[in-house]
Every structure is written in C-alpha cells, then in structure tokens.
C-alpha cells in the first residue's frame, strides 16, 4: 500500500439513501494523481449518486471524503469546482449562443476598467492558448452551437483545465463520438495524466476501459465490490464482478419458425434522408438494419412509424397497403417503435410507471372514456413482473428508474398496444450488460410469439448475434441484404462504408 498522502481523493464508507432506497451502502474509492480510474457497474449501481456527491450536487448521509488529505464537505457545485473537481457531463451543459471562450469563462469572466466590464482580449487569448495546448483546431470565437458534439466535449475539458481541475470526472464521454474523435479524447486523457490530473472515467464500453484505465473500481447495487488494476481484469471477469454472476450466453438462440410476411416496405423514400428502401419481415423474424451514423436507419423507422412523412413508396402490413400519417395510425396498424431517444420520445417526466405503461393502449382500459382503474393497475402490475422492471412500485416516477428499467417500461408501453411488428432503435444504448441481456431475451420472446422485429443497432455483435437477416444502409441507400450466415462484421462494414 502506498502512503496515504499520494492519494488525491479518498472516499470511505459512504452512505446515501433516497427515501427508503439505499443508493450508496458503504462505498469506497481511492484515486491517485495522474491515475485514470474506471468506475464500473450496472445502471443503478450507484455511480451517478457517488459522482453527484463528489461534485457537491448531493450530500452524503455518512462517510468520509478526503480531498488532498482534507475532508471535502460541500454541498455546493461552485465550491468543489473551485477546489479542482470538474465533471464532463453526458449531456453537455453549455450556452449555445455564446462563443467557446465565453463558455469557458462563464461565471468567472476576467474584468477590467469597470466592475462587470468583461476583458474580452484576455479571455480570448487565454482560450486560444488552452485550445492549442489541447491540440485542438477550434477558434475561441466560434459560437458553441456551431460545434459538433465531440468539439463541445473538448471545450468542456478545456473549461475543466482552465479551472485548474485536479480531478476530472468523465461520464460516458465517448457515447456520441466517432472513432477518430475517441482517439483525440484518449490522447488528451494521456496528456492530462502526464500533468498529474486524475480522471474518473465512467463507461459501459469494455474496449475503451481496457485502453484508457489504470484501475477499475466496480460497484453493484450501491455497494463497493472491488478495485483491481485494469490489466488484471478481462472482459468476462469484469462482467462477473458487475452482475454478480456469469452471463453464459449473451445472445440467446433463436428457436422459432418464421411465419408469413408481416411488414413489407417498397421503394420507401424520404427526400434528403433515404431513398428506395425495400424489405420484408416475416413473423418471428429479426431483420437487422445496419449502417454508420447518418446512414438513414432511424429515419426509415421514423417514416414507417409515421413520425415523419414519406416522399415516395408504400408500406404493407400482412399484405394490406396502409397509410401511416402519425404514430397513432402506426399503432392502430400494429406497428410499435422503441425510439433510440428514450428521453425525448419515450418517457413523460412526472408520469408514473403505471401511467407510462398504459399510455399507448389506454383506450382498451376505458369504457366511455372512463379508465377502469383496477384493470389498468392489474395490467401494469403484470407487465412489470413479466419484464422484470425494478421499481419501488407502480406509482414510482418513470424518470427515477435506471436507464435499463426505463427502457423496459417504454418497451412495455409498446408491447401493451399489441403490435405485430416492433422496431427497436438502438435498444441497448447506454444500458448495462445485465439489462442488455434481458432486452435480448425479450426480443427472442417476442419473435417466439410471432412478432416481427426490426433491429437498428450500431453494435455489430448485437446485429450478428440476433438477426436472421441484415439490411445494410449506406448514405440513405440499401447496399446489401445479407443472410444470417453471410453477416459478419467485415461484410457489414464493407457495405456500410460509402464507396
């Protein structure tokens, strides 16, 4: 064991409860200067609560946090920020109409001549230096809104550095980055390490962790499980630590017979998004929709679901041509859609688990418009137990659930409308491995019931592991329709990358 003074941050025996639920139950964590610590755990393991306490957004019920050997006790974000703890958020919080420099210096502008008179020259000069130091070719005078997600993230990091951050917390920093941008991020992380900045890195992506982390701390159900050097943990043992059991087979085998064609799409086009898309899905079949970001996969699903209008083409359900002008039409025709954007399109803030579940099928529980409360409740209770949703009750707010459980509730809502075909759009994005496995099993259960599934995913193992056939899109056009045997990562990428 090294001497305690080399630790920049030591958390011991931390407890925090919300209502009756223990979010943190005796958590510990140690961080050295220049160390990259990966914090791992399933959703609901307590990672976000721990981070919120570290940055002063929540306060712990009991336990000790030593920052540079001194107790850190603040319930104030500004204070922790001043002391050198910064967090790069998953969803970036910046003012779009202000420039890069204005955002970096937001709240601590340098002034001269008059109180409140901003010293622009100094600010822009400092920002240019900072961006150069990070090796970024951004102008300090660009408005935030013109930057890509990756660039905004870099600006957040620049802001943290300019704040003299000694600990930077990164929450799923690569979730919206391209491979090239990830490389840049990792280079910056290495530079920061070299300067003695400690980093807490939160991610579900195992490959990244292996590349970037020195140490891994695993939490499960609010409890501390283990801390090990990253080099000592392989993927399987890490998953076992996180889930507390081995997942023997991530992708369950398909066992079903394929039935009649359920959904047929012919020459579907939407100007500016995609054109001439045709495919069939049979009952019990999983059709994968693969392609790079921006290939038009989500756009195809949105048109089929009636969220956007098609400019040409036809949609047939069980042989009948249908006109879908709104999600309402789509649901009536038996089409369900699980959006990639759970927050914007799936959940209604403030709604309970029960009310979210029944939202798309409410008319079924009503006579003359009056909802039969017991019927609704019974259905919701059954769905919660069928889908293994972890919730404190049917009345719990859906937004309070972890990502995986939110996803299950939204899926429950789709399923309660009795769809014949369900389109899954990145169903496992941002959810942990245990919940992923459950979603995969659910997809298998649906196909066993004769439901046709369209699966959009950027994770090739998911596409290959689950799909009977794979349709590859590239720049809005379909470039290949591969059978299950033909589909492998190389083939798919070959068709997905524009010629």
């Amino acid at each position: 064991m090294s001497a305690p003074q080399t630790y920049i941050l030591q958390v011991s025996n931390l407890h925090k409860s919300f209502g009756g639920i223990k979010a943190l139950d005796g958590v510990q964590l140690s961080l050295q200067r220049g160390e990259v610590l990966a914090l791992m755990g399933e959703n609901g393991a307590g990672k976000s609560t721990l981070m919120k306490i570290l940055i002063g957004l929540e306060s712990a019920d009991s336990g000790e946090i030593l920052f540079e050997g001194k107790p850190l006790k603040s319930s104030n974000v500004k204070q922790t920020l001043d002391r050198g703890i910064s967090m790069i958020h998953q969803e970036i919080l910046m003012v779009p109409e202000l420039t890069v420099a204005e955002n970096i210096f937001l709240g601590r502008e340098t002034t001269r001549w008059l109180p409140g008179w901003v010293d622009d020259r100094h600010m822009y000069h400092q920002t240019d230096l900072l961006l150069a130091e990070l090796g970024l070719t951004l102008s300090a005078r660009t408005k935030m809104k013109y930057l890509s997600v990756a660039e905004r993230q870099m600006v957040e990091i620049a802001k943290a550095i300019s704040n003299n951050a000694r600990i930077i917390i990164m929450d799923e920093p690569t979730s919206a980055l391209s491979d090239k941008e990830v490389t840049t991020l990792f280079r910056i992380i290495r530079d920061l390490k070299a300067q003695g900045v400690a980093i807490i890195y939160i991610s579900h992506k195992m490959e990244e962790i292996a590349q970037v982390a020195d140490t891994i701390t695993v939490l499960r159900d609010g409890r501390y499980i283990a801390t090990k050097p990253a080099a000592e943990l392989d993927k399987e043992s890490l998953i076992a630590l996180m889930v507390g059991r081995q997942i023997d087979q991530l992708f369950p085998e398909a066992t079903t017979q394929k039935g009649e064609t359920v959904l047929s799409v012919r020459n579907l086009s939407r100007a500016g998004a995609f054109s001439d898309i045709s495919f069939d899905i049979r009952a019990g079949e999983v059709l994968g929709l693969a392609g790079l970001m921006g290939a038009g996969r989500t756009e195809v699903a949105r048109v089929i679901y009636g969220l956007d209008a098609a400019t040409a083409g036809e949609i047939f359900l069980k042989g009948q041509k249908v006109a879908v002008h709104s999600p309402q039409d789509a649901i009536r025709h038996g089409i369900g859609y699980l959006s990639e954007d759970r927050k914007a399109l799936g959940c209604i803030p403030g709604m309970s688990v029960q009310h979210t579940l029944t939202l798309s099928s409410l008319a079924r529980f009503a006579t003359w418009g009056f909802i039969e409360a017991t019927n609704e409740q019974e259905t919701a209770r059954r769905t919660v137990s069928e889908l293994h949703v972890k919730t404190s009750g049917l009345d719990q707010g859906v937004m309070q659930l972890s990502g995986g459980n939110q996803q299950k509730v939204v899926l429950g809502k789709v399923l309660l409308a009795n769809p014949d075909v369900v389109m899954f759009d990145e169903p496992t994005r941002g959810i942990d491995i245990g919940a992923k496995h459950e979603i995969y099993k659910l997809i298998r259960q649906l196909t066993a019931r004769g439901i046709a599934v369209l699966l959009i995913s950027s994770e090739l193992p998911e596409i290959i592991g689950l799909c009977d056939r794979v349709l590859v899109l590239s720049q809005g056009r379909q470039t290949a329709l591969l059978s299950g045997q033909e589909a492998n990562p190389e083939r798919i990428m070959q068709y997905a990358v524009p010629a």
Partner: protein
Amino acid sequence: MKQLVTSLYNQAGTSYKKRVQGIGTYGILLAFIVICVALALSTPRFLTVSNLTIIVTQVSINALLAFGVTFVIITGGIDLSLGSLVAVTGVVAAMFAHPDTFPLIVPLVFALGAGLLMGGFNGLVITKSKVPPFIVTLGTMTIGRGLALILSKGRPISNLSDSFNFIGGGKILGIPFPIIILLIVFVACSLLLRKTIWGRYMYAVGGNEQAARASGIPVEKIKMLVYMLSGTLAGLAGLVLTARITTGQPNAGQGFELDAIAAAIIGGTSTSGGSGSMTGTLIGALLIGVISNGLDLLNVTSYYQQVVMGVIIIGAVILDGLNRKAA
C-alpha cells in the same frame, strides 16, 4: 448512467403522484385553513353562513374560468382570452334574453356555443399555425373584446328576463344557483381530468409533447379539446355574470383571465405543464375569494388588496418549489 438533468425530472416525478391524487394540494389547503381561522378570530362577521355564501357565490365565476384554464395549463398552454370571452358570451346571451322574446334555452345555447367556437378558434390556430398559445390567445383577447363591443354597439344590454336572471341570482333550497353550477362543474372537471383517458392524455401532452405523440396520443385533438373546454366554461361564466348583474356588459370580465390563471397556479398547477389538479384550483380560487372578502371586512382598501394578492401568488409558487425539493 443518469445525469444531472434527470435529477430535475425526478423531483417533478415525486410530486406527480401527490399532485394527481390531490395530496400535493395539502400545502395550499393548510394555508387556506390558517387564513380562514385567522379571519374568523379577527372578525365575527367572517364565519357566518351569509358571508360564506357570498364568498362562494363571488368565487364561482373565477372558479369556472380557472377550471378551464387548468386544463389548458396542464397541456402546457395558456389562455389569455378568457376575460374577453366572458364579455362576448355575456353580450350574446343578453341579446337573446329579453323578456317574452326567445325561450330560455336560446341564450344559454348561444352563449355556450359562442364560447365553444371561440375556444375552438384558439385551438385551431394554435395547433395549425404553431404560433405559441400566449400570442394566439393574446390576439383573441383583443378580437373578443372587439366583438363584444360590435355586437352590443358599445352599450350595455339590459332588460333581461327573470328566468334568465335566475342563473345569477336564484336560489334552490337556499343555495345560490351559481354555487350549484360551480359544484357540478367542479365534479365534472375533476372526473374528466382524473378518471378519463382524455385527462391522462392532457398530462402526457403537457409533460412531453413529443413523447405523447410518439405514444400514439392525438396531441392536436387534445389541444383542441382543452381550448374548447376553456372557451365553453368562459361561456358559462359569461352567463352567470350577465345574469348576476342583469346586464350584458361589453366591458365586463377585464383581467378575469389573470385571476383564473392565478387560482390555478396558487392551486399548484405547474405553468410548465404536466401537473395540476381541479381540487387545487378550487382551493386556489376560494383562497383568493376569502382573502379579498377578509380584507374587505377588515376595512383594508382594495389598493392594498391587490398588493397582498400579488404577494400570495408569488409565495404560492415559491412554496410549491420548496415542496418539490423536499419531495
């Protein structure tokens, strides 16, 4: 991994159940009771049957408007045209309510129908043009006032039939007719909001319009519905007011929309949509009525009353915010 933003949603989430079940109105109910007790102790004239009856009768018009605007605010909208609709519908009713001209049903149907049409107009423009409800109803507020003046040629319309005036001044079993209307409408609105699919859809539309649409909810129809409800209830308020003052007044109802919105907000309806209850709104309206009545009894001039009312509105919203944090 959840991030900061969800913690805000979470807070809203905890209060939802309470709100929907009317428990979130505890705070305001408590304030209401405290103020009533305080008034009862400071003046013997407050806690009498006749005074309480006067209060509820006076509150009824504001409460009818407030119920309507509660639907609208829950869906994330606003209706500023209510006061003008009271005037238009009141004038329309008066035009057909002279003694020995038309049967009583005619002014009733015409006034409610005018409210329904104007509300429908609001809803149609809001859903088709995507112009914010604040702007659209600001426009119809002026249009409505103009129509009221045009229809009445700028003059009050009096000489109304006794049967019509009964709506505002009559009593059944000693209970003023406006109070009976108030109670029936309150029960109907509560049921609509709490027990029907349309009520549930209103919360969904106000909570997250995009998600509501993606869940297959007819968002536009729900919006049309709330503005039509709001307009129709304004028509009912116009009838009650016209019958009470036995005159169709083109200048009536100025600023009524603000009192109605205040009642909804004091009662815990969130201006950002997605939460609120009719019980809360009723208490909000009663609170406003009790305070102005109490201040009258205590001989506080109406100038001060306005100051007090403003402080209470802001205080109610602050309290509501504190409640959410605590939840």
